[in-house]
Each structure stands twice: as C-alpha cells, then as structure tokens.
C-alpha cells in the first residue's frame, strides 16, 4: 500500500505549470431526435486547462456533464462547439494514425472497472494490446519487460496477475489494470472518470494514492472526475464545479471546499456527510431548507443561471441572464450574479453571510 499520504495542504493551484491539454468553449448537445432540434444540453462552454503534474477535479451531481467533458477530451464524442487543444494545437484527428497519436498522449480511465476490462481477455492481452498500439517499437522480451514494469507501477505483482482474467480480480485490482493500460501509452494526460466511485470504500483511497503517486513521479496531468467533493479535496489541486452542464465555480481545492462561493457548491459541501459536523456549528436553517428540488431537465435547461430554480437567492436577473465565470480573487472564479458588481447590474441577489465567508 502506498505510503504517499500527504498530510500537508497542497500548494495553491499552480497556474504557471505547463498546460498540456486545454478545452476552449467545449460544448456538447446530444440530439435526441424527434421534435426538431431537441437536444440534451450536456455541456456548455467549458474552459479547462490541465497542467503537467497537476490534478484538476471536475465535481458535480449526476448528469451535470462530467463524463461528457471527459469523453470530449478523449475524443470519443465530437464537440458541438469549441475545441480541444493539445499543447495549444487544436486537435482534429478522429481516426487513423493521428488519432492513435492523440490517444497515446491522452488516456482515459473509466468509472466502472468491472465493465471497462473485456471479460474475455487476460491482463496480459489487455496490456499487450496497449503496448502494441502505442509502443510498436517494443518486441519480444522488451515488451514483456515493459508489461511487468507496468504492473509493478500499479503495485500488482506481475507473476501473480499477468495471466488472470478480470473476473479473477477484485475491483481495486481491476482498476489498477485499467490504470496500467492507460500508462502503457506513457500518456501526458490521464482523464479519470469517477475512477473510484464503483469501488469498495476501503480500497478507494489506495487508488487515489496511486494516481497521486503517478502525478508526482511522472508529472502526468490528471483530470479527476467525481461527485464526491471530499475526495476532490483530498486528491485534487484545483476543483471545478459543474452544474447542469455549466461550470459554476473553480478554484484551488482547499478554498473551494472550505469556503464555497456558489450557492450550489455551498449546497454540495453542506450535503456531504461529515461526522465532524456533529458538533453542529455552522448550519443555518435557511441553507438546508433552501435548496431543494431536482436537477433541471437538460433538454430544456432553465434560462439564465441554471441553478436558479433551486437557488434560495434567485432574483429576476438570475432567471434571465447567464452569469459568466468571473474571478473573485485568489485564483478563484464563480458564475453567480451574487458576486457581480452591484454597480453594473441591478437586482443582484444578496448572498448575505455566505458571501462574506468566501471573502474571509
């Protein structure tokens, strides 16, 4: 088990790092046929920068477009609008050699290790395929050595695991194989789509620690997708919160979790089970009774701020105009009219104490 547990708070999101993969205005609307133009607005205008050696967490409730973002970045979907930039170059490849080259640099890990490994293939086959595709120069003994070192890297003993079928492995072991498969390409970017949500509680931390180790040792840029904001705090350098396909807040992990700015983030943080809260210090009745209801219908998302139907502070402005993601200092930005300059707009919602907190 890794001993990489890192008790010190991570450095503030280091914006100076090398941007490996970036998304600019990434938008995806899934056509659902039937009535003309009906589409699921899965993701709208996502800007994102993944830097070498950094973890960006994408947090949001189910259906908020997290996986869509990952799939767009992996180019499993084509964006409706916007572009993916690898080292500043727009990526266009969709198949063939160029796509393979892209795959080699950007690898994805899926949520469900039970489903992402083909049940009919051994670990050896799965990893060898990856090596053959991405490192065709390796042959025979070299490839075997590479295979073993991959398993070593994900802390699976090669002799024991190399000839196993997925069903002979536990969930954590499977997820490690999936990670090894991604590493076989020696990628610069790992897109990890909820890599631990399907795993048993006791082994989740192991996988996160492993990923963190890879980030630190190989300098890989990681996009970490989760709905568990506590794990994002634990693992990520930067957190970006998605709500109904739109980014509503971003900032370094610690401050976003400790001083959430957007009403939705606040709701999220407050909803997370936290035994320490037993002491019952800062829970105000207004908060918990305020945000209720269901996530919006993504075929006809609410106009204006998409959170407004559930937001206790919503005003008419929120119902009509989309707030942009704007900086509120200390590397943080939030898309909420509550933080807008009251001089420029009339009728802004008053977030009251919540706002004061962030500023603190």
């Amino acid at each position, binding site marked *: 088990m890794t001993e990489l547990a890192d008790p010190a708070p991570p450095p503030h999101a280091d914006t100076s790092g090398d941007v490996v993969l970036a998304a600019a205005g990434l938008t995806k609307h899934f056509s*659902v*046929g*039937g*009535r003309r133009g*009906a589409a699921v607005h899965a993701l709208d205008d996502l800007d994102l920068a993944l830097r070498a050696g950094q973890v960006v967490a994408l947090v949001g409730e189910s259906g908020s477009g997290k996986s869509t973002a990952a799939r767009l970045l992996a180019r499993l979907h084509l964006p409706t609008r916007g572009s993916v930039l690898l080292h500043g170059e727009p990526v266009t490849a969709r198949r063939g050699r160029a796509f393979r080259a892209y795959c080699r640099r950007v690898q994805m890990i899926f949520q469900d290790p039970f489903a992402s490994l083909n049940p009919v293939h051994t670990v050896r086959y799965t990893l060898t395929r990856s090596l053959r595709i991405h490192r065709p120069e390796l042959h025979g003994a070299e490839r075997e050595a590479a295979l073993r070192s991959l398993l070593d890297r994900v802390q699976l003993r090669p002799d024991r695991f190399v000839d196993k079928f997925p069903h002979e492995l536990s969930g954590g072991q499977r997820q490690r194989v999936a990670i090894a498969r991604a590493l076989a390409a020696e990628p610069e970017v790992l897109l990890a789509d909820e890599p631990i949500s399907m795993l048993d509680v006791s082994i989740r931390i192991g996988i996160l620690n492993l990923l963190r180790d890879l980030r630190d040792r190989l300098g890989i840029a990681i996009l970490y997708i989760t709905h568990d904001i506590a794990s994002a705090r634990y693992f990520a350098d930067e957190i970006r919160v998605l709500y109904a396909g739109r980014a509503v807040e971003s900032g370094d992990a610690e401050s976003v979790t400790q001083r959430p700015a957007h009403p939705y983030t606040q709701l999220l943080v407050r909803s997370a089970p936290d035994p320490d809260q037993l002491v019952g210090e800062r829970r105000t009745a207004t908060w918990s009774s305020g945000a209720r209801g269901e996530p919006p219908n993504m*075929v006809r998302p609410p106009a204006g701020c998409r959170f407004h139907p559930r937001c206790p502070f919503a005003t008419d402005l929120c119902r009509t105009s989309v707030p942009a993601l704007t900086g509120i200092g200390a590397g943080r930005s939030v898309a909420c009219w509550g933080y807008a300059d009251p001089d420029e707009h009339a009728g802004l919602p008053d977030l009251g104490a919540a706002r004061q907190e962030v500023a603190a």
Partner: protein
Amino acid sequence: MRFVLRRGAFYLLTAWAAITLNFLIPRIMPGDPVQALISRYQGQINSDSIQALYVLFGLDHEASIWSQYVEYWGQLFRGELGLSFTFFPTPVSEVISQSLPWTVGLVGVASVVSFLLGSFIGVLIGWRRGTWADGVLPVTAFLSAVPYFWLGLIAIAVFAVAWPIFPVSGGYDGGLTPGPYPEFVLSVLEHSALPAITIVLTSVAGWILGMRNMMVTVTSEDYVTVAQAKGLSEGRVMLGYAARNAVLPQVSGFALSLGFIVSGTLVMEKVFSYPGVGYLLFQAVGGNDYPLMQGIFLIITLSVLVANMLADVAYVVLDPRTRQEA
C-alpha cells in the same frame, strides 16, 4: 411519435421488400405451370392437351420482367391478384378468401391457445422453480423437438383410424352446408380437434420454456420481493408482479413466431387435409401457380406484418415504458 414513424417506415419497407421478393422468386425459377399440371395428374391429362393449356394460361408471349413488375404493382393497387393457374380461371383473391378463414380459425386459435396455455404453465413452473415443477422441462424439451407432422399422422392413425373418435380429415362434414347453425359449428369443432391438439402439443413447449425462463429472471427482480414484503397474496404477486412483467418479451416473440407458425400450418393442413391456405400454398408451389403463390405469400406476409403491428401496439399497452413521450 418518432418511434411510430420509424415503425411505420419499417413496416412499409418490409412490405415492399416482401412483395418484391414474392414477385421475383417464382419468376427467376425454372419450370412452368403446364408441366406442373401434367405431372400433377401423372398421366391423367392427355399429353396432347399441353398446347391447349399453354394457350389457356396465356403463357405464349413473353413480357419483360420489368413490365411484369409494373403490371404486378398495378394489379395490387387495383386489388387484383390475377387468376390462379391451378384453379383456372378462378381469381386468386377468391381462392384465398375461401381458405383463409379455415387457417385463421384453426391455426390462429390453436396458436393463441398454445401461447396462452404455454405461458400459463410457464408462469407456474417458473414461479415454482427448484421444485418438482422443474421435472416438466425435459418433457417440454422433447415435445418441442417432435416433428408435428409425425405426431399428427400418429394421432390420425390412432384416434381417427384405429379408434375413430375424431374424423380423419377435412374441415367439416361433407354433408353439411356451411352456415351458422349448431350442427355445422359442432362439425367444425369436431374436425378441428385433432389438428388443434397436435398443434398445441408441439408448439406449447416453446412458450412454456420461454415464459418459464422469463419468470425465473423476473422473480429475482426486486419488485417481486417488494411485493412479497408488502404481504400481498401469492396469486397477486405471481400474476400481477412476476407474470405481468415476464410476459412482455413473450408478446413480441409471439408476433415474430407467426411466420414460423404459418410455415407449420402448411404441413399440418396437408396431413389433416384441412382446407386452409397452408395446403393451398403447398399446391400452388407444386403447381408453379405464380399468381396464387404470390397472393398467398402476400396475404401471409401482410398478416404477419399486421400481427407484428398489433404486437407492437399490445406491447405499448402492456409496457408503459414504451409510451414515454420525449
């Protein structure tokens, strides 16, 4: 809505393709109806009448296949199916309308009975799996594998010839004029008993197995356990919760199997000398009677399509999930 359109398009396309296939198959095959007629009468037709028959059937002149195709569609739209060769000069539509009710009556009813009975038995043994009820399975496996013509012939030999409980053949007593009076209806029932029983016996096994497997699958669904946890009565849980869901795939299976059922009819009607379309088709094929063949294929294909459509509808009625708007 989109679903409806798609299904509609599918049905139209299938209908078109089937009709075209119907048109093509007999034409690209060798052989002609006159020769078939001669061989059918094996020496009873004077060989000198061959020319007379060619003249009679109007087979002297050759039209291009394309113009025949156009003509064929023209006929279809006019509701004409041409004149049968075997029953020259009776219009195909008349020949078919005479025998269709019998097939629908016998095979339709027997198939439905077999479906219902099989599904019901399947429900019971699926619900009671792991008990003695599983012993039914090998029996059904055997029944489903018995060729029905074989069973039918044995049934005739035993129950119509050796112990004449049932009539040997036909759809009703030849002394009766068809009409809705009790004696005739009784005669029809009497005549259909043996074939119907044979059809049911050989086809029920499939439905039992299908339903049983679905029941087993469905009974392990949570909602069945929930129903038990609610303390509902056994019957309600079994029928309202388990069987109600398990029957869904059976419905579409039933519609699709109609094609096979019709195929089965053919030999069945031959064996039992039943006056239905199946045997008619067999005759038409044997007699190279293109117009009749095409007519029957058309009717069968269209009715299978219609049955599928009905099954679609039934499915939508039975399964609210398919009614989803948006």
